[in-house]
């Protein structure tokens, strides 16, 4: 039957499967997050529903679905209902061009493990759609007509727009070296060997991308839009039941996408030396590639969760300072270095040198004379007492 092998049909089936799988994966990620949070704090975590609490996500999901939908009177109803839908939609859309298993550009006939294979603007598409996600937060905060929601949304817009710049600039070096925006080609460029992984050439870009991605997904230590201590719940204060669940779903899907991107752009995607290599695929190698890529992704998610319980939240001026005064200049220097390497066809190991320099030199400079600033403190003793 011709219709079953038509690329449109295959894309349809794969997208239905992915859309069906992602909420399940997300709810178990939330479970994993709660468990890890508990373990880090010397607790046990959810353990009442099912063996080891494994059915907790199902109970949570049912609770989200059947809870009363509280819609405050003062909200702008259309935008209020639109915002959570945008949150899920944009993050799911961005996932369309992310390979989550074996891909092979040499043999396009083969089944490609992504929803839309062969998209030549892949990474560009992800950033274009991914930056739409901030609309969900801004619209949600605005429509709620609540000052805390609005403050959260404002913070979020400033934060996401700032961090989009280092995020995009840090991967430009990778794109330049590969010569393609296509994520499958970026993987294959790295799949030539263990030391072709981009993380060896651009460790600093890797760090910048990771930091900016943490800020993009509103994860700690950059979760200012929803910081509970200052803003109640931030932009989702007025949301309840499944609408809140959809914001949650969007956040975790974003986290999955970012973890996939980190492993694809910098850690060789499905490539692992000795296990998975370029070339024609067998059923076994397809499964291995899937496992390798999933393993890398899970590792990043685990690290992101561990970072959450390790670092305290940034102050807002520190957050902006980090983006504009540190990450953007560093990413820019890295980009210029990548241009030089590309132009003069130099060994990419020069980039490693530059990146290591980018790591140490600013720190060395900052620990010098400019590192210690004069700051005012309130005099507690003499002056205050003398005036009374």
């Amino acid at each position, binding site marked *: 039957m011709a219709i079953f092998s038509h690329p449109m049909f295959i894309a349809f089936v794969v997208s239905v499967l992915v859309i069906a799988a992602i909420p399940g994966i997300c709810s178990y990620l939330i479970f994993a997050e709660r468990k*890890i949070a*508990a*373990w*880090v*704090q*010397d*607790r*046990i975590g959810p353990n009442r529903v099912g063996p080891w609490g494994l059915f907790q996500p199902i109970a949570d999901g049912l609770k989200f679905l059947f809870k009363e939908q509280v819609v405050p009177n003062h909200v702008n109803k259309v935008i209020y209902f639109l915002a959570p839908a945008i949150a899920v939609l944009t993050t799911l859309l961005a996932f369309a061009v992310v390979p989550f298993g074996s891909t092979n550009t040499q043999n396009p006939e083969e089944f490609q493990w992504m929803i839309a294979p062969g998209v030549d603007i892949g990474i560009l598409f992800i950033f274009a759609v991914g930056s739409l996600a901030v609309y969900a937060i801004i619209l949600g905060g605005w429509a709620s007509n609540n000052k805390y929601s609005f403050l959260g949304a404002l913070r979020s817009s400033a934060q996401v727009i700032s961090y989009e710049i280092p995020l995009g600039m840090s991967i430009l070096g990778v794109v330049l070296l590969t010569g393609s925006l296509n994520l499958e080609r970026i993987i294959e460029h790295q799949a030539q060997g263990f030391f072709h992984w981009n993380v060896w050439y651009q460790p600093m870009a890797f*760090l910048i991308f990771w930091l900016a991605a943490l800020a993009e997904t509103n994860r700690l230590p950059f979760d200012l839009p929803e910081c509970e201590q200052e803003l109640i719940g931030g932009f989702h204060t007025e949301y309840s039941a499944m609408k809140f669940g959809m914001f949650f779903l969007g956040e975790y899907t974003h986290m999955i996408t970012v973890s996939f991107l980190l492993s694809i752009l910098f850690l060789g995607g499905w490539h692992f030396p000795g296990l998975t290599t370029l070339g024609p695929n067998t059923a076994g190698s397809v499964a291995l590639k899937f496992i390798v890529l999933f393993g890398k992704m899970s590792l990043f998610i685990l*690290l992101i969760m*561990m*970072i959450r*319980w*390790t*670092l305290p939240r940034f102050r807002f001026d520190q957050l902006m300072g980090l983006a504009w005064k540190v990450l953007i200049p560093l990413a820019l220097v890295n980009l210029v270095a990548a241009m030089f390497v590309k132009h003069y066809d130099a060994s990419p190991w020069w980039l490693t040198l530059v990146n290591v320099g980018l*790591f*140490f030199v600013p*720190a*060395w400079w*900052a*620990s010098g004379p400019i*590192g*210690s*600033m*004069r*700051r*005012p*403190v*309130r*005099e507690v003793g003499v*002056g*205050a007492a003398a*005036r009374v």
Partner: protein
Amino acid sequence: MPMQAQDVRWVKEPRLSLMDRLYLPSVVDGILTTGKHLVKTLRGGEFTQQFPEVEPKLPSHYRGVHRLNRDEQGRVKCVACYLCSTACPAHCIDIVAAPSPWPDREKYPEMFVLDELRCIYCGMCEEACPVDAIELTTLYDLTGLSRQEMLFDKEKLLSVYDQTTQAGTDPARTHRGQLGPASEKAADVRLPNPQ
């Protein structure tokens, strides 16, 4: 009030070393710390108590449900002196005294009702009692279906005494001074050894 210029003292921030300025070593250090806790908990080092299945071990001076003590003959020890209800900041103790039927004391409580819902469990009644008749036990999971049920009368409070004595969870005496004649004999409840 605006801050005066002479109140402002300028200080130099302590200079961070190169290692501090790199930040990454400190972050890795922090992740190792959280990781250490994670591994420790996975190996069974958690502090969580599985409450409904495992009863907590409460210290014997815990202030839970009250009891009225009995003397060695099984009579209520209370001499209806009203010191506890006078000391009570929540006014939850209601006593009606009557002439004692026994020769060793003048009065005894004909009625002794303690409202467990009003009580704030401060323990001042047991400190006030001159004969160690009222004490707070380690029973912590007190529930009831009506307010009426939570008014503990003399019989109920005495049954709490029987229950806790049988279970071996006698509370630690908080008051061990000069006691009245009605309590001389029963003052031999030992404080638990601090070790």
